[in-house]
């Protein structure tokens, strides 16, 4: 708090100047109250409190820890723990309730969907897409075509134990054999049966398609799983070949490729990786995407 050395009185206002001058413009001195300055000093002193209380100075290998022992990681952990405590009652209610009860309880259902959406983003989105839209060979979970059943319990079971996952309770069904590679069907027959599949779905066929031959080959080789009319079989995970939904594509080359090399997609079992409540929430979320029955 010094008194300026050179002060001059401004002729126009009669106010003393601070002695600061820039290109002929002089700064008038309007004194601040002293307490204002003391507050500045107080804030400087206050800042030393931070050095003592919080981590502040870098050291060679680490930093000064601060007497509170505060860390940003610790703060996040505490936040997460308090969140878990907050969610605990709803989680245990979700755990205890049956699917029928949850469907009736709007609050519980909303909670399950929120939990399920988060878990879906973390675990399922890499294959099925963030909104469950799917991609070739990874089913779209929004549509009404389900290989393994569309009830919420069916969905829960598929999520929990997977498809051909190696888990003892997994869904296995009947993986599609590689008819071409194993020599069960010759290339010309594969062409015929592929055209026949397209014909069953109401899609145009190529020249040279012999309906009688196609039907014969289909009933010999395919109908045991896909059914005589190609409607599929949920017990075996055999898709309906007559609808408009094609997991691997509806063009003849894709169908022929499936017949030639076989199909047998795998979905991992999530039990053990995710807890039962999360799997339950996931099932409710996926069921509610639009395809659930």
């Amino acid at each position, binding site marked *: *708090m010094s008194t300026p*050395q050179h*002060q001059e009185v401004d002729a126009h206002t009669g106010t003393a100047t601070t*002695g600061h001058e820039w290109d002929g413009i002089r700064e008038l001195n309007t004194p601040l109250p*002293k307490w204002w*300055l003391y507050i500045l000093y107080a804030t400087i002193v206050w800042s030393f409190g931070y050095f003592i209380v919080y981590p502040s100075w870098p050291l060679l290998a680490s930093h000064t820890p601060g007497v509170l022992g505060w860390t940003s990681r610790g703060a996040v952990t505490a936040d997460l723990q308090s969140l878990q405590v907050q969610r605990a009652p709803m989680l245990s209610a979700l755990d205890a309730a049956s699917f029928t009860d949850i469907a009736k309880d709007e609050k519980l259902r909303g909670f399950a969907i929120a939990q399920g959406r988060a878990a879906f983003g973390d675990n399922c989105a890499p294959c099925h897409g963030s909104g469950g*839209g799917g991609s070739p060979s990874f089913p779209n979970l929004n549509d009404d075509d389900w290989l393994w059943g569309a009830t919420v319990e069916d969905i829960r079971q598929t999520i929990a134990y997977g498809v051909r996952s190696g888990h003892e309770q997994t869904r296995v069904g009947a993986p599609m054999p590689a008819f071409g590679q194993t020599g069960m069907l010759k290339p010309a027959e594969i062409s015929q049966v592929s055209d026949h599949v397209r014909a069953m779905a109401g899609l145009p066929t190529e020249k040279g398609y012999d309906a009688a031959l196609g039907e014969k080959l289909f009933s010999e080789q395919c109908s045991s799983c896909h059914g005589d009319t190609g409607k599929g079989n949920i017990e075996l995970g055999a898709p309906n070949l007559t*609808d408009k939904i094609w997991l691997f594509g509806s063009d003849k080359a894709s169908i022929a490729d499936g017949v030639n090399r076989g199909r047998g997609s795998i979905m991992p079992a999530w039990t053990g990786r995710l807890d039962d409540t999360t799997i339950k929430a996931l099932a409710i979320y996926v069921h*509610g995407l639009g395809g659930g029955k």
Partner: protein
Amino acid sequence: MSVKQEQSREAALSAKGVESPLYAERQKVYPQSVQGTFRRLRWAILCATLGVYYLLPFVRWDRGPHAPSQAVLIDMEHRRFYFFFIEIWPQEFYYLTGLLIIASMTLFLMNAVAGRVWCGYLCPQTIWTDLFLLIERLTQGDRRERMQLESGPWTLRRARSFLLKHFLWLMVAWWTGGAWVLYFSDAPKLVADLATFNAPAIAYIWIGILTLTTYFFAGYMREQVCTYMCPWPRIQAALTDEHALNVTYRYDRGEPRASVKKAEASRLAGEPAGDCIDCRQCFNVCPTGVDIRDGLQIDCIQCGLCIDACDNVMAKIGRPSGLIAYDTDERVKARACGQTPPTYQILRPRTILYAAIIAIVGAIMIYALATRSLIGISAIHDRNPVFVTLSDGSIRNAYTIRLLNKELHPRKFSVEVTGLEGALLEIVGAEQGAEGHLVDIGTDQTREVRVLVTAPRNSRHAREDIEFIATDTISGQSARAKDHFIGPEKR
């Protein structure tokens, strides 16, 4: 500039130099009590404003069984603001914009009409300082006694009055903080909870904060808040003009100053003599410690107490009152030049403009409040996947729709979609009655539902405009939300 020139200039500066520190000690103000018109007006405003502040939370307003019955309530927990018949949701916070425009224009208008009306009569800083000064006067005496007390030794009497004053200040400050928190919760219940120490910690913390700020700002900081901390004196200094009424020392009448006897002698001798007898009563009563005779200044809050003080003195010495009065610059200047002062004009382009803006914004707000919809709908289209092909080849789009029920009772909305031929609507997890798709929504709540719209593939284009309509099944009120129906490119 050469070194030599610089040195000579510095020498010249220091020769003329004065001692003026960059930081000044506060000159403590000891305002003297005063009687008069403006003092009475200020007491009345003080009682009215403090009465509103302390008692308003207890005013009840019946909104039925599903909503709080407090007339003015900021319900942070449920994100609602209640003001008598008005209820505001967070997304309607834009009403505050209108309120702020009206508030600032009212400040401007007051300033253009009669100077710092806000600072002098209405500002909380002024009102609580006035209240604290009253306590100070009641416990420690008037200006002269307080000055003597503070410059003298610590006697038992001084200690006792000191303790009593601070106790009363803290009580007022405590009540001020206590009333504040009542605006955020049901007042009678919170008072009971506070008394039995069952209130939430945040209530005690806020009471503590406001107790301390009131105590320090009204007890210690006082006029320094106005001079150093508040931006409004600066703004109003730029807004005022020579046509606006301000608390003014009429120097045309007051100068030259002289004692009563000297002035009489001068008048008899036919020499000029002002009415100001330099008794400094105007300065003594001033709560900010300014001398109004120096003219308009930033420290002056224009409370009018110097008018009362001066009028009392003028009555005693038998001179006409109004040496200090509400007057305009142009009138004082005209009289000083011996001209007839122009009459004060309240209707000037500036005041008309401010009043017009207040009227227009006010009308818009009243219209908006009167036509406020009590039903609302908003829709978000699913981003992934944008559409789904179903087994039969039809196309389905999914939407997240939020329905708003701003009525104070539960309602049932039907939801339908228009603008798409052959469209079927389905709400996941909602009942489907004979009247269509019905959604129950609780009192004063929103509800989010997942809506699926399905349409045959051949009847549609890649992107069609659709509209969702929510209708209250009983009142028939409805709300609409625009969106799109998206499908594969038409081949």
